[in-house]
């Protein structure tokens, strides 16, 4: 599973009403229907899927898919 796939699957689990085809690089989580709590949930779910641990503080200002994927990849 790629990091992007893990994030996408996590996002669709948290906001199932979001169109999977809309989950593409370059989008912000807000655009994809996520609240700030949803975003935190997506991050922890993706960490669990990938078996990586990223300090939550590092996600503080990270709001778009690409940045989340990059941060998770950095710790993989």
């Amino acid at each position, binding site marked *: 599973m790629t990091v992007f796939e893990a994030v996408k699957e996590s996002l669709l689990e*948290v906001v199932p009403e979001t169109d999977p085809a809309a989950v593409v690089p370059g989008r912000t989580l807000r655009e994809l229907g996520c609240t700030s*709590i949803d975003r*935190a949930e997506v*991050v*922890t779910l993706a*960490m*669990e899927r990938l078996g990586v641990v990223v300090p939550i503080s590092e996600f503080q200002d990270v709001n778009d898919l690409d940045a989340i994927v990059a941060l998770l990849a950095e710790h993989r």
Partner: protein
Amino acid sequence: MSAPAVVGTGIVCSLGADVPAFTAALRDGRSGITRADGVLCAPLGDWSFRAAVDDVPEPLRTRALRAAGRSPRPVAAAVAAVVEAWVAAGLPDVPGDRVGVVVAGHNLTDRYAHDLHESYAHRLDYLPARFALHALDTDHVGTISEVLSATGEGYTVGGASASGNVAIVHGARLVAAGVVDCCVVVGALTELTPLHRRGFTALGALAAPDGDPAGACRPFDADRRGFVPGEAAAALVLESAASAARRGVPVRALVPGVALGLDGNRLADPSAAGEARVMRAALRAAGVEPGELDYVNAHGTASRLGDETELAALHAVLGDAVARPWVNSTKGLTGHCLASAGVVEAVATVAQLAGGFVHPSANLANPVDDRVRFAGATARPARLDRALSNGFGFGGINSAVVFAAVHNGG
């Protein structure tokens, strides 16, 4: 001050996932009690939130799914019951700040926390980010308020097994005092953990899981042996008479009298005097004389001491008129739904008032009191105008609510 009206009811329980299914099961005297893995319970079973809200009109359906699609099961079940009651109430168009939410119960997230502890205690980094929200009892309040866009007063209220009635009392007061026009009163589903179940067992409160599960719960029977836990979420929409009249919606029943009181006692030691006091107070507030009462939905858990104490209280309150009202215990069919019991039994009471019947008494082979008019083994038609619903909790928390029928068109 006119009595608050019940304009909608909703329920999700072992007997069915909506009020029509629940009412049909009550008429049939069908029990939801089963035994699984050596444990007696009336479980919700394989209920699905998504399926439950499938027929709900938009935009309520989408709001419900968005708010509670990933909620712990008790919150999802509460939302399903609320949505059913709200639709039944004709989707009240009252302003959001005139809608209140009162949720019955406490320790509602014990099972959620227990289950997440099992999964995440040894890998805390992956604890779901929603935990801090879902671990609060008030997650019920927030989620339901979001679904209904309710911005009036809202809170949880606790009273152990009397919680459901405590919530009805507070909801009725909010409406009667004019604080809100509509109040959603929600009985929250209690999921026991192994520790909580064992705790009840240690007190000798639970029926032992031997023999036929259908015969395990025997309220007011000489052979009763304790309660069986049940899972249910239930909801009432209470509305002021003026608001209901403005909307032109049918009133299903009125709540003319409510009462709460404590025994000054922290134990599981019920007091007939304390119970009689709230029953009298509720009847007096409703202007109902003992000889005018048609039906009692008893607390009746099938506890040896509890049932006996409740009967003593009924005798004290009703005197010679104790032979008049029909008496049954819904817990014989649904199990004891703990935090939600009072709201479950309010839904059952309103269904019987409106439907003109009394549901059967489960397993009442040898009634312990031959002067009380217990419902029999089958449902029977009855014109019921005034009903009393009791709820008593550990720690001496006593409650009683009077419901009055509204026979539309005579």
